[in-house]
């Protein structure tokens, strides 16, 4: 089972923004304080290679990062690319999942639906590649 953050990171920005807005309606009243961002920044990609298990810096990845507080609860969102709305929605969902309430059930259900759709999409992508599977024979 894929993690919720993996599922969310693989979904369209509009879908993630929609479920964040819907869940936010359940938390009333609410105040959002932006601590930083959304800002474009970099993370340094660390890679554990497969020859000697050396961890090395393989380059930087452009990301958008958001840190906020929702009713005093910290929320963190980060996504590859320049996607400020996506990053903010992820930060809100991060905070929402830490605040007790019925919205957490809603969020978990919606993430489970997104996970099923994602599995279908990723399988279709793999299935097309799998059509190029070969069995070489030697003479």
């Amino acid at each position, binding site marked *: 089972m894929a993690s919720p953050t993996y599922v969310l990171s693989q979904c369209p920005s509009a879908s993630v923004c929609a479920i964040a807005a819907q869940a936010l309606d359940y938390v009333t009243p609410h105040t959002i304080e932006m601590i930083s961002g959304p800002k474009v920044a970099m993370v340094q990609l*660390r890679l554990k290679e497969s020859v000697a298990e050396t961890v090395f810096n393989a*380059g930087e990845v452009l990301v958008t990062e958001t840190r906020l507080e929702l009713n005093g609860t910290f929320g963190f969102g980060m996504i590859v690319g320049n996607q400020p709305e996506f990053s903010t929605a992820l930060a809100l969902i991060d905070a929402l999942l830490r605040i007790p309430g019925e919205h957490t059930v809603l969020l978990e259900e919606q993430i489970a639906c997104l996970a099923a759709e994602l599995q279908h999409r990723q399988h279709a992508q793999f299935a097309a590649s799998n059509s190029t599977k070969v069995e070489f024979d030697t003479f």
Partner: protein
Amino acid sequence: MGYIAARGGTNAILNAELLVEYMRLQGQSTPIALDQIRDQMRAAVGRAMNEGALYAPELAALALKQSEGDSIEASFLLRAYRSTLQRVMPTIPAEGTAIRCMRRISASFKDIPGGQMLGPSQDYQIRMLNSLLTNESHADIQRVIDAHATLAAESDCDPQAIGHFSKVVDYMRQEGFVSMRHDDEADEPFDITRTALTFPCRRSARLQSLAQGDTGCLLTYAYSSVRGYGDAHPTLAELRFGLMPVEVAHPMTGEPICIGEIVVTECEIVSKAHSVAHASDKPQFQLGYGFTFGHCEVKAMSMAILDSVLTQAKLNGLSGESGPAANEEFVLLHSDGIEASGFTAHYKLPHYVTFEADLKVLDRATEHVQSQALQAHVAPVASGKDTP
């Protein structure tokens, strides 16, 4: 005629910039959209990203447009932009086993666990210009999209499968073909963006340096070692291309959170068996590792060949000619395309004062040679002897 330092030229420089824009647009063709470059120039975008050491497909497309397709200039623009961004944190170390493979092949074994999958590749096609692309239409695009959907629908693979495979090198380790050597580096990898390279360098420094190296340069060095100016005898253990998830630690809880997937190429090269370094050791294959952003197979393979050659050279394990590709300092200090092109291009800029000094040296050398010649002519006359 004198040579002096120059100043000014502001208007000329501004006009020169305008002429560059004019050269790009004078044909008055439809401006290229960035998404067209990102989607349809995948190889160029990947190369700009890995040589610029910044994964940002949209910005790489912009850099390629601005540089009119010049790969080194595009990577230079990306690396310059990189220097304006804050690095907020490192990722949790990613591993190639997490890649959702679209392509996965081995040249070492025809039967590998999980099987070989050619994926998107032109390796097996005849290199002929495709004139059908000259007038490609939206209908053609839809035809390919539909054909891809049909391929997916007709596949009979495991419905849960999304492209995860075990590594061929792990199988080779189980069989004892390759060493189980683990790196003894400290936890924090070397960072060539913060600390200048010194030699001998740590393996993490070598891999970081090669990963952002110029494709043509790495290819040349690797090819030289394979063709005869070295001792490389590589075989592809595994090459995989696909999407790799990236995770960071949550700043409050420390839990891993996924921030998306990136397109990558990864490979391992296996070199011939030897036991040169330690005669008592069990003969085993050596391995080399290659990794790039984007779909850049030749660069990943060149990097892996060089990694293998440099490792063997360090272990004193080369059984034949070492060649220039086995010299780590030579390879790493000359393989960065941005540094190399910048240094070469700077000779186009005014060097009037430098060259004036060169002229004076030339004058003095000329005077010296002339006075030597005169002395040689006068000396025999002064001694009363005839010249021969």
